[in-house]
């Protein structure tokens, strides 16, 4: 039988204060209908037969006893979760980056990755910030939102941004590392194409809002008389 959607049952014995219920044991017995259950079962409470416990295999004595008592580590049931996202940060929010190479840049938020970092893009054509990860703590969320519905961010995750692991090359006789290093510093064409396709859709929706493009292109800075604790972002 498929379980029906039931309304959650109200407590039968509400608390007068913590630890003291409204109804006594005998009243609760009546309320729960235990008398009806007993009557249905012929005067006694229905029992079921205990399941025969499977015979435990005889334990073999261990071959080795450690000299001192070995301490067992305490059980830890904590699960790793991505950082709680501030309520002011939703997909499409314009964020102000506060630290790092792009400090002061206004940037569009795309999504939160499983590591907890925020996936963000300039867009690259507007302010030079590529698809990048940024920590929530180093960001001010403004109340301006860009339209992000035309953008597909499914394929980007933490692995996309991870450092590429090179296979260890055996030292060939006479080969030096210098020849290899020159190849590594350029960005693969695939990532450049990803940036372009993502930004194309985003830029059209940004240009629809007057002044938003130049807003994203400008850096944020505190000027004279601006008090951060009084500013509304």
């Amino acid at each position: 039988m498929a379980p029906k959607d039931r309304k959650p049952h109200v407590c039968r014995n509400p608390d007068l204060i913590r630890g003291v219920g409204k109804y006594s044991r005998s009243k609760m017995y009546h309320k729960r209908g235990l008398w009806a259950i007993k009557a249905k079962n012929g005067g006694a409470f229905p029992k079921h037969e205990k399941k025969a416990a499977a015979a435990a295999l005889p334990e073999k004595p261990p071959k080795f006893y450690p000299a001192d008592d070995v301490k067992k580590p305490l059980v830890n049931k904590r699960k790793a979760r991505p950082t709680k996202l501030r309520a002011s940060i939703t997909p499409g929010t314009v964020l102000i980056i506060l630290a790092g190479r792009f400090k002061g840049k206004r940037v569009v938020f795309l999504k939160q990755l499983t590591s907890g970092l925020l996936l963000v893009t300039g867009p690259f054509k507007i302010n030079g910030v590529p698809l990048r990860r940024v920590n929530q703590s180093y960001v001010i969320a403004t109340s301006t939102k860009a339209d992000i519905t035309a953008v597909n961010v499914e394929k980007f995750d933490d692995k996309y941004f991870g450092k590429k692991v090179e296979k260890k090359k055996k030292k060939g006789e006479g080969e030096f590392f210098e020849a290899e290093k020159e190849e590594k510093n350029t960005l693969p064409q695939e990532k450049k194409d990803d940036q372009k396709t993502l930004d194309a859709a985003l830029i059209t929706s940004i240009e629809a809002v007057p002044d938003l493009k130049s807003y994203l292109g400008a850096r944020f800075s505190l000027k004279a008389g601006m008090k951060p604790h009084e500013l509304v972002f």
Partner: protein
Amino acid sequence: MPFKRYVEIGRIALVNYGKDYGKLVVIVDVIDQNRALVDSPDMVRSQINFKRLTLTDIKIDINRVPKKKTLVAALEAADVKNKWESSSWGRKLIVQKKRASLNDFDRFKVMLAKIKKAGVIRQELANLKKQTTA
């Protein structure tokens, strides 16, 4: 030098300290040398120290301690809200509030507008200067 704004029944005052900061209230009765009974359509009638009030130019015609309904009717009749919002003091407060509530994007747009306005003015000035020297 003589005083122009008096504490009297019906004087509109601005609260400048406390929970009701920024509200316009009517002085409805004087309790003693330091305190008045004030009332406003959106607050419970209460006492307040004169030090927390700033008197305005506006005065309405009411009896001592009127009923709330009469008070509201008298405020409507004297059109206090519009008089306040069209006075230079009232307008300044509205501008201050608007500026405080601007978000980052709005401040950016204001900056662009200021630059544009300054550009237009400078252009006009240059034209005028050319005319006078020509």
